[in-house]
């Protein structure tokens, strides 16, 4: 990692807004604020990751993806990563630390939430209603989709406004057509997947080259990671970016308002950056970690934590999958990966299934010959090796694909992020620890959905099907740890992300999710971040600030 503070102009002593984290939500905030004339600085612990570093177009891809580009920071152990204690968690959190945040590694499934996701209490008597509706967020989804250059096909009857997308859909290919034929036999919903991957050249990005390596960083630069979609324009508009800046505390002034942050650079030197407003965008684990680290006289239980809700209600979307193998040659290593199709057939609650809420399904290709060939240890040698090594490659390579199930997990206050009493990161800052158990409702939900996904493969003609009912490495979505709501007694932030206990602290990442939905969350994280920051910009005259 480089030591340089990558700033084009001197950083003011006090900025209007200090944003922590240069990932999906932080990028939205920085760009929106800079182009509206705010002085804005962003502190990001990681570095830039140029597309030339990614291995997806190189022969060694499948070997290095299991380490250097692994989504689990505890496995990857890169210089900008911090450890996360998962001894008491059913699921491992997955993320990336650097400019672009986790969008560097995300699969770019672009999924708006459904209207019912905002009203789980009203409709299903579980969770809580969000303080706004699908219709309130809809224009922000549209605006974000234009900026991200989302590819998809309009007219999906699964959504109320049958959204159209700025770019045409990516190819379904043989895999998509095969799976769609199965769904049609059953009369089940399917639609070409929307992806934040360019199907045509757009903005700073070329069209997708179908390497299928999206989950390890796009070597073509076709995937909409926010280092490409937002940062060049944000810097152009005057934003300051400090890389290699690991924040250890949000400071407060004598009124208890957020007044800046203390960070450590890559030479181990501590700095303080002052600000009138602080925006937290460090994701569902990084944000509560920082708030719990920021204890003060005004905030003895951690910043803005009078409710003791900071870090609680962690939701991570346990993931189930059914992989089908087919006789036909399907070129199933081709990208995008990416969702080729999605299905919302079983998204809405049907209590006769024995659980509430549902899941989005996504269809994904299966990659190259090495695949996830790890973890053979202890299993019978001849299962994967000897003559079976060759037989398995012939049977599976290019002929298999996955129906994956994004299970909505409901908020539970005992699922939480806390500070580990012993473990620290490389700067000596206490590391987060996750306490997380998937619930009975989620387990029933996954079991039921995976059984239907098996039927979808059978209908499409699969010759063999393997299922996973809870993948451990599936914590892609880190949500809920600073709940959004109208009542200051039962939530941490209001509908605009402002902390009830600290009104110039604005939280805009996935932490604010009131419930998790059964969708990949980045479309909603970014649309919600835009809505919050637009509100801040429009109400700057009445916005409380430190130093006034």
């Amino acid at each position, binding site marked *: 990692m480089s030591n340089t503070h990558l700033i084009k102009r001197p950083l003011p002593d006090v900025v209007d807004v200090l944003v922590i984290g240069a990932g999906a939500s932080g990028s939205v905030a920085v760009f929106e604020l800079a182009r509206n004339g705010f002085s804005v600085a962003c502190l990001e612990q990681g570095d830039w990751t140029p597309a030339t570093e990614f291995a997806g177009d190189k022969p*060694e891809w*499948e070997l290095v993806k*299991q380490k250097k580009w692994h989504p689990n920071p505890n496995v990857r152990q890169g210089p900008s990563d911090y450890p996360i204690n998962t001894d008491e968690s059913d699921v491992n959190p997955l993320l990336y630390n650097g400019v672009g945040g986790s969008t560097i590694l995300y699969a770019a499934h672009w999924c708006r939430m459904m209207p019912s996701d905002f*009203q789980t209490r009203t409709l299903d008597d579980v969770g809580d209603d969000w303080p706004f509706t699908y219709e309130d967020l809809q224009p922000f989804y549209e605006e974000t989709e234009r900026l991200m250059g989302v590819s998809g096909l309009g007219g999906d*009857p699964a959504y109320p406004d049958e959204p159209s997308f700025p770019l045409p859909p990516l190819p379904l290919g043989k895999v998509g057509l095969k799976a769609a034929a199965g769904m049609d036999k059953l009369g089940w919903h399917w639609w070409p997947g929307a992806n934040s991957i360019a199907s045509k050249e757009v903005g700073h990005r070329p069209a997708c080259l*179908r390497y299928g390596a999206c989950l390890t960083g796009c070597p073509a630069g076709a995937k909409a990671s926010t280092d490409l979609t937002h940062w060049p324009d944000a810097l152009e508009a005057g934003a300051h970016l400090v890389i290699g800046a690991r924040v250890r505390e949000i400071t407060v002034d004598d009124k208890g308002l957020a007044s800046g942050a203390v960070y450590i650079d890559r030479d181990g030197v501590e700095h303080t950056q002052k600000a009138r407003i602080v925006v937290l965008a460090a994701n569902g684990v990084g944000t509560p970690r920082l708030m719990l680290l920021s204890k003060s006289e005004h905030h003895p239980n951690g910043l803005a934590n009078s409710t003791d809700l900071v870090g609680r209600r962690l939701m991570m979307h346990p993931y189930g999958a059914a992989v089908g193998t087919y006789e036909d040659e399907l070129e199933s*290593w081709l990208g995008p990966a990416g969702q080729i199709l999605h299905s919302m057939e079983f998204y*809405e609650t049907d209590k006769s299934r024995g659980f509430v809420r549902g899941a989005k399904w996504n269809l994904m290709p299966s990659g190259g010959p090495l695949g996830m060939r790890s973890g053979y240890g202890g299993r019978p*040698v001849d299962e994967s090796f000897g003559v079976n090594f060759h037989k398995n490659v012939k049977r599976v390579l290019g002929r298999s694909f996955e129906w994956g199930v994004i299970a909505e997990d409901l908020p539970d206050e005992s699922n939480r992020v806390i500070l580990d009493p012993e473990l620290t990161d490389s700067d000596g800052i206490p590391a987060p620890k996750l306490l997380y158990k998937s619930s009975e409702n989620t387990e029933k939900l996954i079991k039921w959905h995976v059984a239907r996904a098996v039927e979808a493969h059978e209908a499409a003609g699969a010759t063999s099907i393997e299922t996973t009912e809870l993948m451990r490495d599936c914590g892609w979505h880190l949500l809920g740890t600073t709940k959004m709501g109208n009542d200051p007694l039962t939530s941490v932030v209001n509908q605009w992300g402002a902390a009830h206990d600290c009104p110039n602290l604005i939280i805009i990442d996935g932490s604010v999710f009131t419930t998790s939905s059964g969708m990949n969350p980045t479309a909603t994280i970014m649309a919600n971040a835009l809505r919050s920051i637009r509100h801040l910009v429009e109400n700057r005259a009445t916005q409380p600030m430190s130093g006034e």
Partner: protein
Amino acid sequence: MLTDEQRAVYSRLADVLIPSAEGMPSASEADVPTKWINDALGYRPDLVPAFLRALEIGADGEAEAAVLRINSTDSVAFDALGVLTSGSYFLNPAIKELIGYPGQVPSPAYDDTASYIDMLAAVVERGPIFRPTVT
């Protein structure tokens, strides 16, 4: 870099994992122990210690028994051996050709909506499936 002795041990173990069968060459016929393992170890330096442990455990006796012994006594070492051996095998372009895998080569996206638009008409006909916002 492996010593000649380590390489000789590895060659025997690798051929148990990937024998000549099903019309495919064995690991040593595909130059895994002599060439591709060097590259693979370079790509995965984190696996080197566990890999060397596997060679130590598997140094003596008949090769098949040695592989079983590695798996039963040190599963982490066996994982490293397995990943590096299969990974090395697939690094060889001749093997890629034999299994029909072109590798991750550019294959520009194209519009194939015409091939499924009729099928989609049926989905549209089945109608909306969402619950609207309650006001």
